[in-house]
């Protein structure tokens, strides 16, 4: 991969080993903070993904931020170590081309200074300036790209991507690229349906959340994407918290202390969106990950207060499922001084 031009506003940082990842103050403020009130419970928290609020991660349909180039470098490292992180069952190739078209079109429209797409029939030219890519290829012909269409374009797009085939009134996870996940395995889950890959989630099945969510997803049509937010916590700004490598990063879960919690413990936010793909009728599910350290949170008083209250009242099943047990109390104690006990303003955005 070519080195990005120095004039581009992308940070050079790591998500492993020496963990040089940092957020600029602007990036903290534009984060999609996942709590719209002072408590958290699983819900069918879905809304249309449009009319993005300026100055937030919702502004563009596919968000690109200062971490772009370094995240893509981390993805390439993961794929080199473990090619099973990107898989596509044989019937999903068409959906891969749909994904490529969607991501190229969105990016070129939102960020013309960084990306451009020229189409001449099936002859396409794609320029990605931040990553130094200028490729001409034939749309629909895999031999004209260095990787399959899904892998090609998602090596150039932040976040994980699942591609779901619709059959028998259900969605089947039949393709994906997963290198920045909250502890689940694509290699294991590929081929499963909506209820099966969600099987390990506590409480939500009993509350009928997945049944209602699936019904909503099935109704998503071309041109009307939807989104939801999910969250967990991660020790160190590690993107690749995979079950595959759990035996390597797992010990870090015990390393949080009252002294290091501010800089070492991260709120991990997932901005998930849902897109109906045209030629394959598949659904594309990008899961974009944003990391905010506990210290980052304290720079936005409302967020620190709210995080404190959410962690305090979180049902134990959910806390354990998310793997917070080792450090939940330490985080609560760290955030307590930022909670003045007064009501917070409505909605997720900073005051």
């Amino acid at each position, binding site marked *: 991969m070519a080195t990005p031009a120095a004039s581009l506003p992308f940070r050079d940082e790591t998500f492993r080993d020496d963990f040089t990842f940092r957020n600029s103050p602007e990036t903290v403020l534009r984060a999609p903070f996942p709590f719209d009130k002072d408590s958290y419970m699983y819900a069918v928290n879905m809304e249309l993904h449009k009319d993005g609020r300026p100055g937030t991660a919702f502004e563009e349909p596919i968000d690109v931020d200062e971490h772009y180039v370094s995240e893509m470098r981390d993805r390439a490292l993961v794929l080199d170590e473990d090619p*099973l992180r990107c898989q596509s069952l044989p019937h999903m190739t068409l959906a891969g081309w749909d994904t490529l078209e969607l991501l190229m079109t969105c990016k070129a429209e939102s960020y013309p200074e960084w990306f451009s797409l020229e189409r001449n029939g099936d002859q396409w030219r794609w320029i990605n300036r931040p990553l130094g890519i200028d490729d001409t290829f034939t749309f629909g012909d895999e031999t004209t790209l260095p990787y399959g269409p899904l892998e090609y374009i998602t090596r150039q797009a932040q976040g994980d991507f699942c591609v779901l085939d619709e059959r028998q009134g259900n969605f089947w996870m039949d393709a994906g690229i997963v290198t920045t996940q909250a502890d689940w395995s694509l290699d*294991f889950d590929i081929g499963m349906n909506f209820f099966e890959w969600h*099987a*390990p989630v506590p409480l939500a099945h009993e509350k009928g959340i997945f049944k209602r969510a699936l019904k909503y997803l099935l109704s998503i049509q071309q041109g009307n994407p939807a989104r939801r937010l999910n969250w967990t916590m991660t020790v160190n700004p590690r993107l690749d918290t995979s*079950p595959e490598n*759990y035996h*390597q990063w797992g010990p870090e879960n015990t390393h949080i202390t009252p002294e290091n919690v501010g800089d070492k413990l991260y709120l991990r936010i997932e901005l998930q969106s849902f897109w109906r793909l045209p030629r394959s009728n598949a659904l594309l599910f990008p899961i974009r990950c944003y990391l905010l350290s506990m210290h980052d949170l304290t720079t936005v008083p409302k967020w620190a207060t709210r995080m404190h209250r959410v962690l305090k009242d979180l049902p134990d099943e959910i806390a354990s499922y998310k793997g917070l047990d080792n450090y939940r109390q330490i985080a609560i104690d760290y955030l307590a001084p930022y909670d003045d006990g007064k009501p917070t303003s409505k909605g997720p955005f900073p005051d």
Partner: protein
Amino acid sequence: MSSRIVPTILSRPVYGTLTPTTASAHLLIADADGGTAILDLAKAAPAGFFDSAEVCYVPGADADFSDELQQLSPRQFHTSPTIQALLPRLSRTFERLHMGTSVYLAGSESLIGLATQSAMQAGLDYQALQTEHRGTLARRVQCVHCKGTTENVTTQPAECAHCGLLLFVRDHYSRRLAAFQGVNINAEDPTDVPPKIEEFT
């Protein structure tokens, strides 16, 4: 003996009871105690059922119903010493199958899972297969770390036969891999070695 499987999470397969259909051809596949499920099905089957039936059977060390099954006089009766030895034949059998042939799988979860995998590779939907669990609860377990699959796992936790990590055996199940998921149980503190309990026997 009927299944002792309790439904837990939604990815964990549950099985039914084999019932004879009126299809024009039948393929029955079983191992060990699964043979008794075929014998029970035979009691409910219409006359002539086995004239158009092929039975593939893997006898178990202490559960061998080969003789009883052969007495049903299926059109074709085949035994294999192990499930692994049966698989190449199965894959060819599924490829040659006509739509509408009824498929019945009975016995251990490993047999049911591997035969399902073979059928799916031939393009059959897994929901096209009838299944019934009988006998052992031993599991096939994929180590999520090294990707090796360990056969006949009966303990919780269990050692990965490939990389040696001590694995917590989850109920999360992959039909594509025909395996349960194993995740290192003591990653956060490798010195903490919990005792193994015979849980899947």
